[in-house]
């Protein structure tokens, strides 16, 4: 294998040959991130709300349910993502028919990201002063109304910030899943950059991932700040 100098490597990282490999991987990564994010948003939000609502001092305390839910979430959270992905790939075969490739990995990725976002949603909602929920109760609000009219709107700025964190976690977990046949930027980085010492491709893949994370964080910050500004809280 010919040895490239640092300058050549960096130049090559922006070369056409490198990008013919990296570009399709970007598409795969975006595909996985997009669907995993949707699943994480929906089920993570539901999970977080369930955790808060059924906890001992929640609006619908349900000790047994909350204990089981808490243990499942903790169990999933305590395992490294890569283990969960390995464990859930057979599940993907059952749900989407294949256990390899981007489609299969979405399920595995969602299983690792939902409990994490669920906990973040929980902490966002718990930031709401209890008095506001009590005020709603004192007006005769039903639990469903407290969730939709108080908890979610009041926690919105914090939810947006935590959702940003979750999307970034999805991006990095997606890269991890690349090692297990998911495809995408992680896969390219490992197959070319690590296994074949193609440092230029590794650099290109990393740059794209850094850019993705920056963009997500930037959008998240703007959205959250806009909500706070609109409400004159900053």
């Amino acid at each position, binding site marked *: 294998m010919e040895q490239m100098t640092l300058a050549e490597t960096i130049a090559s990282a922006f070369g056409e040959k490198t990008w013919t490999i990296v570009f399709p991987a970007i598409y795969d990564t975006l595909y996985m991130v997009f669907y995993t994010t949707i699943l994480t948003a929906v089920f993570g939000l539901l999970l977080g709300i369930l955790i808060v609502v059924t906890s001992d001092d929640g609006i619908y305390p349900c000790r047994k349910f909350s204990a089981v839910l808490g243990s499942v979430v903790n169990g999933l959270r305590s395992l490294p993502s890569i283990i969960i992905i390995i464990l859930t790939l057979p599940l993907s075969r059952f749900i989407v028919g294949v256990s390899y490739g981007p489609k299969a990995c979405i399920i595995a990725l969602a299983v690792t990201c939902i409990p994490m976002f669920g906990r973040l949603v929980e902490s966002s909602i718990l930031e709401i002063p209890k008095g506001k929920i009590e005020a709603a109760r004192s*007006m005769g609000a039903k639990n469903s109304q407290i969730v939709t009219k108080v908890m979610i709107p009041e926690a919105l700025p914090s939810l947006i910030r935590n959702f940003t964190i979750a999307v970034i976690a999805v991006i990095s977990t997606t890269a991890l899943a690349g090692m297990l046949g998911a495809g995408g930027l992680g896969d390219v980085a490992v197959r070319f950059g690590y296994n074949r010492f193609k440092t230029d491709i590794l650099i290109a893949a990393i740059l794209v991932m850094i850019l993705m994370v920056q963009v997500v964080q930037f959008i998240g910050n703007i959205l959250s700040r806009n909500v706070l500004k609109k409400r004159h809280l900053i």
Partner: protein
Amino acid sequence: MAAQLGERGEAEHFIRIADLRKTFRSRGKSFEVLKGVDLEIDRGDIFGVVGFSGAGKSTLIRCINRLEEPDGGEIKIGDTEITKLTKYELDRYRQKIGIIFQQFNLLDSRTVAENVSFPLEIAGEKNGRISGRVKEILDLVDLSDKADFYPGQLSGGQKQRVGIARALANNPDILLSDEATSALDPQTTLSVLDLLKDINEKLKLTIILITHELNVIRYVCKNMAVLEDGQIVERGPVRSVFTSPASDTAKLFLKIDAGFQIGWNDGGGI
């Protein structure tokens, strides 16, 4: 007072609280906060409950709309026994009892008008009728020009006015005030109390307020009770409690009150 004691006058009192008990339990310890409170309040009264911190004032007022569940005793409003309401009935009933809080508890996600429409939405009011009602109440609390402001843009006094407007939205029979002026400066306190007096007259609303500020009681209340260690130790018209206090707590309150008025820091008298 004597006439009331003779027959207990059950039929004429709007609110009757009898032997109300509440014990808080946490980690094996229990605190008996209300030790059998008896209270009668007439319709249209502005009734003040005064007591030091920890006397149980807040728990007492929060039992009336069952934000706290009493352990024993009765709370009758008109012919309704509050402690026996089912969850569904309680939600309906709560719409007829407004409450305002020390910390206002407005929703930051909603404008002033939307905060006031909140209880109307909950009560299932039709959208077409909400905006008219909101306008009407905002007029009453003198905040029409702030309808589209967010709570984050308002002063403490304005926030409490929104709180009052919100509490009045569903035309309640009773307004509970849980230390509603304790976070406000004296001038703002006065204007909020004037508003309470005003709505008491205009709407024939029964107001129950708890406070640790004697001036608040003196300024707005017609009748009062003194709560000490979970029990009512004294009650009656405000003037008579002030002029001839019988309980230690009432005497102490008045002494503190007087102390602030004559206690110059140079040690001199009036």
